[in-house]
């Protein structure tokens, strides 16, 4: 005799564009293009120091200020790149992907089982094992499950019914305990 275990919770998921874009940035910050952000901050603090210390203060010539200038100039360039340019590019790309996501995953129903979750949409049925998820990011508003920086599952907490919210939140925290990151925004 076979028996199918009942799901722990059934949730209708409908992330907004803002939630999806925010999720992409969170994942990129952990395992994608924005991962080197702390290194960039440290480098941007060291570069002006190197630039100023390599500047020959008593024999100024055009050729001697070339390298110090490049080093000092690299500091704002690095900060602008990691805090503005790259996030803007990622936001723009994510907004583009959301168009397809919103069609394919429209009104998707997610069922959580002990070891896996099943997402049913108008077009697809996706079966994702928790063991194959490399990361779970929790913010005050979202759970973001990621296999890699490209494939993410967004679970807005507002979509979880009140009666199962506490139980499901505790379950997800436990299921992803070693791979769970708590973040407030994409930077911290």
């Amino acid at each position, binding site marked *: 005799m076979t028996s199918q275990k009942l799901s722990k919770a059934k949730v209708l998921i409908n992330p907004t564009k803002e939630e999806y874009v925010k999720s992409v940035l969170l994942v990129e910050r952990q395992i994608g293009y924005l991962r080197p952000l702390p290194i960039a901050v440290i480098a941007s603090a060291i570069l002006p120091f190197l630039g100023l210390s390599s500047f020959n203060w008593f024999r100024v010539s055009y*050729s001697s200020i070339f390298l110090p200038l490049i080093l000092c100039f690299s500091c704002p360039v690095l900060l602008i790149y990691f805090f503005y340019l790259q996030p803007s590019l990622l936001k723009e790309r994510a907004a583009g*992907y959301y168009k*397809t996501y919103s*069609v*394919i*995953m429209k009104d998707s129903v997610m069922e959580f089982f002990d070891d896996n979750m099943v997402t049913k949409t108008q*077009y*697809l*049925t996706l*079966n994702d094992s928790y063991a194959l998820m490399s990361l779970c990011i929790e913010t005050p508003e979202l759970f973001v499950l990621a296999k890699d920086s490209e494939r993410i599952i967004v679970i807005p907490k507002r979509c979880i019914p009140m009666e199962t919210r506490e139980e499901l939140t505790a379950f997800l925290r436990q299921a992803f305990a070693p791979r769970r990151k708590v973040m407030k925004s994409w930077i911290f």
Partner: protein
Amino acid sequence: MEQMDKFTISVLVTKDEYSGAHVFERHKIRSRYSPFLTISGIALVVLGIAGLFYGRLIMLSPAAAGCLVLLGIFLGLYDGVIAPILDRGAASRDYLAREELQFATTYVFSNNSVNVSNGRVQGEIPVSLVTKWIETPALFKMDVGRELSVIIPKRLLSEGQIQTLRSILEKNAPDAEIK
């Protein structure tokens, strides 16, 4: 007789096929700006060499001229040598990380939709939802956003099926082709 507007195919993509297609796709995407990179690289090398020999005249120290030469060589070789090596490495890591690429997947192509079935995904997607597709010498690769990637090696297709698949994609997703 083989029905040409609907065919079923079972696919297990190899790492070499996946990496080769990724390198090809990246090269096509880069081709929009890679001539600019190569020309900039050549210009920097010329400027750096000039700096090494006539640095005083053009106000370049030997160290700065050396940096320019190195940067120029990097930019000049980026598209042809460096990027393909990096892309192949990234694709190999991606292949190992994506467990669904290691499952056999059954695809059923019809006039305007593709039915997908493997250990993770089951369902039917309209071809009009394909956001990006490319035909390489070895395979067809189609992406439906970030959610689904369909890879069909040509070694599994007859000449007629290749024509059919190409025409299905050209008819239903003409703007999504990477040219």
